[in-house]
């Protein structure tokens, strides 16, 4: 799999206006416009799906299901919400359903990180390399979390969805979502940014 890294936040939506226009046309029943929406947004949707389910095959299934639901529910999308946020919520919901269905054969694979394309022209190579290394470590740590914990921290801290949206799409209470978020953050912090004396041995006693 190839990872594309963009510089400043938001540069992966090069045509927000065009996307809004496409969505508006699709809502009027223009199927080709919706096809174009799929083309423009699919890598982003796939990335979220992959981060939630942790493997390529399930991520592809989740993406297909998400676009089917998005297409059917397009009339219920209110223009004032960001379309991408709406699509993230549907994707999260599909991933949650998918994980529930597959709980018995749970396998958390580490993301493959071959074929990294870096797009930081002019940056200090050492800094770029360090940042890339950190992102790979964070990705691996996320993949190592149980799916229930992983989902909340990905949706909250990577995708910035509000607590109530996360709870609603995962079918849990806001309190449960917050508890899971706290556990996920603590595990990640202990693994990635341990305090002195917290390494390895002590980690097991505090995790829970």
């Amino acid at each position, binding site marked *: 799999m190839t990872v594309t890294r963009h510089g400043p936040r938001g*540069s992966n939506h090069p045509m927000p206006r065009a996307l809004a226009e496409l969505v508006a046309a699709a809502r009027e029943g223009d*199927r080709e416009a919706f096809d174009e929406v799929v083309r423009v947004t699919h890598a982003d949707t796939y990335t979220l799906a992959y981060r939630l389910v942790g493997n390529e095959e399930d991520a592809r299934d989740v993406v297909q299901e998400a676009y089917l639901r998005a297409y059917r529910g397009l009339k219920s999308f209110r223009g004032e919400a960001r379309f991408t946020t709406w699509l993230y919520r549907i994707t999260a919901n599909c991933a949650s359903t998918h994980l529930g269905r597959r709980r018995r054969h749970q396998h958390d694979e580490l993301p493959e990180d071959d074929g990294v394309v870096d797009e930081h022209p002019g940056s200090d190579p050492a800094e770029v390399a360090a*940042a890339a290394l950190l992102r790979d470590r964070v990705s691996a740590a996320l993949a190592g979390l149980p799916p229930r914990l992983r989902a909340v921290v990905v949706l909250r801290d990577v995708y910035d969805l509000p607590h109530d949206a996360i709870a609603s799409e995962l079918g849990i209470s806001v309190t449960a979502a917050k508890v899971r978020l706290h556990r996920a953050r603590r595990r990640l912090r202990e693994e990635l940014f341990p305090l002195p004396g917290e390494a390895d041995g002590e980690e097991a006693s505090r995790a829970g």
Partner: protein
Amino acid sequence: MPAELRCDDVAPTLAELAAAGSTDLRARRHVESCLRCQAELVQYRKLLRALRALRTDVLRPAPGLVADVLASLEEAGERHAIRALLTGRRAAYLSGIAAATAAGAAGAIVLASRSRARNARRFRLAG
């Protein structure tokens, strides 16, 4: 005046303090005077920054995903049209046998296009 908070009391709120910057006053007061909790807060800030940075990483799926999505949309559209046909006014003109045949054919179309999509995917994975 309630007793001073200890590190263990504050620990559960540190991540949220790092994320949202607001928590109850007593917890903040403890952190201001506790080097250990300050150090932990710094580590949470690093974690949150690293997580946010992932947002700009876009994974490029193996080829064929868009085609698969469009095919499934197409298929769903066909199913919808057939259902509309069968439940709509035109169905009233069909005899029972004709309706049953049409339903059978509709099922066959859906199954055929499904297995076509699946075979196509399998082929890509193999190749």
